[in-house]
């Protein structure tokens, strides 16, 4: 009989066990029953942790707070690019570029695995166009040039933000796209073992989060702090990293 661990008992407690005989085994063993009772009591203890009460009108209060911020453009079911003017296209391109990169990188990774399994130096898959049968060097170059383009756009967004007296929901939307793109590039960099680049991109995320979710409703003091950080630190770091990426001899 397989040893029953506390993890098995946890799954049993939550009704997620995959072994149909487990309940009977626990019930039939004094030791297991005792362990299960102990686990149950401790997990039930968590139920003491009750959130503060919210009144019956909480939903209405939430609605009152958010309604002014629900602009019609956001609820479009179709492609949003139709409504965007040229300036807003830049970050969207960054997001599209990131998605394309992830797709190509994933494909290259799968092809690479096939190649290593068949001990062939260059993966050859029937039916695939030669343009997407990428070597490791190609995916590395693709990542570098894509991130460089992303940093160009970040440079633009950060510069606009640092010099604007106020921010808007449209700017928040742009920052959201940049944040998503940034995360995809970071994951691609991690997957390719480019740890320095991945760490650099990870370091940009907290501010992008703030720009996406907070900047448009921030107090003047907070906005000032964010803009100062962008001006004093981030813009410089983005430009330096971008220069490094454009010089292929420097390792990232």
């Amino acid at each position, binding site marked *: 009989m397989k040893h029953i661990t506390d993890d098995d008992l*946890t799954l049993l407690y939550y009704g997620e066990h995959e072994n149909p005989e487990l309940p009977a085994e626990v019930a039939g063993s004094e030791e297991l029953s005792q362990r299960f009772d*102990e686990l149950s009591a401790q997990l039930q203890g968590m139920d003491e942790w009750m959130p503060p009460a919210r009144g019956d009108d909480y939903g209405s209060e939430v*609605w009152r707070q958010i309604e002014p911020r629900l602009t019609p453009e956001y*609820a479009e079911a179709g492609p949003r690019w139709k409504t965007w003017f040229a300036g807003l296209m830049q970050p969207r391109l960054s997001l599209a570029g990131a998605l394309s990169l992830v797709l190509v990188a994933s494909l290259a990774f799968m092809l690479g695995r096939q190649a290593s399994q068949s001990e062939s130096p260059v993966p050859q898959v029937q039916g695939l166009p030669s343009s997407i049968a990428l070597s490791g060097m190609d995916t590395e170059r693709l990542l570098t040039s894509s991130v460089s383009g992303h940093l160009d756009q970040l440079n633009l967004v950060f510069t606009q933000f640092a010099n604007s007296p106020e921010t808007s929901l449209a700017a928040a939307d742009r920052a959201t796209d940049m944040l998503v793109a940034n995360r995809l590039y970071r994951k691609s960099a991690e997957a390719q073992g480019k740890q320095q680049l991945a760490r650099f991109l990870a370091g940009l995320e907290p501010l992008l989060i703030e720009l996406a979710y907070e900047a448009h409703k921030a107090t003047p003091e907070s906005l000032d702090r964010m803009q100062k950080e962008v001006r004093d630190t981030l813009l410089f770091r983005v430009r330096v990293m971008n220069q490094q990426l454009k010089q292929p001899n420097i390792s990232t």
Partner: protein
Amino acid sequence: MTSTEQQIIRKAAAGDRVAFRQLVLEHSHAMFRLAWRISGDQSAADDIVQEAFIKAWRKMGSFRMESGFRAWLHRITVNTAMDHLRKQARVKQHESPQPGLEQLAAGASRPKIDIQIDVQVETRAAMMKLSETERAALMLRHFEGHSIKEIAQILDMSATACKQAIFRAVKKMRIELAPLVTT
């Protein structure tokens, strides 16, 4: 999901504010509980709920009816709460350290003796010691009743990784809560 709910969601996805308001009224309390349990802070939870609904409104067009609407909303709430926590952590780096939740979580500000043990406070402190992923996974399983498969989708991770996160969270919570619970 009932056909009435589906109809409301379709209308909201098409930009119908009245329909979206119905969704807000229906899901606000549950979203607050989830946001509060992840953030550990009342006013932060209020902000998270509002932000999550605004994001939901923006993304309504991408919701697919075959996936559960509640799980979809919870995913947005969890992501918003995690972003909020990361932002908070970052802001705190810029500010002078003040006694707060982290200290409470670390046990630094808790008197060690001569106190009446408050299970609620201890549970909250123990929860805050979990990693974000462990906490979110445990919250979604224990309090919201999502299956491991659903939680894996909500947290964008594999079912195995999700299971391991729950196991780790349960082990840590048991260590913290064992002295308070007698069987």
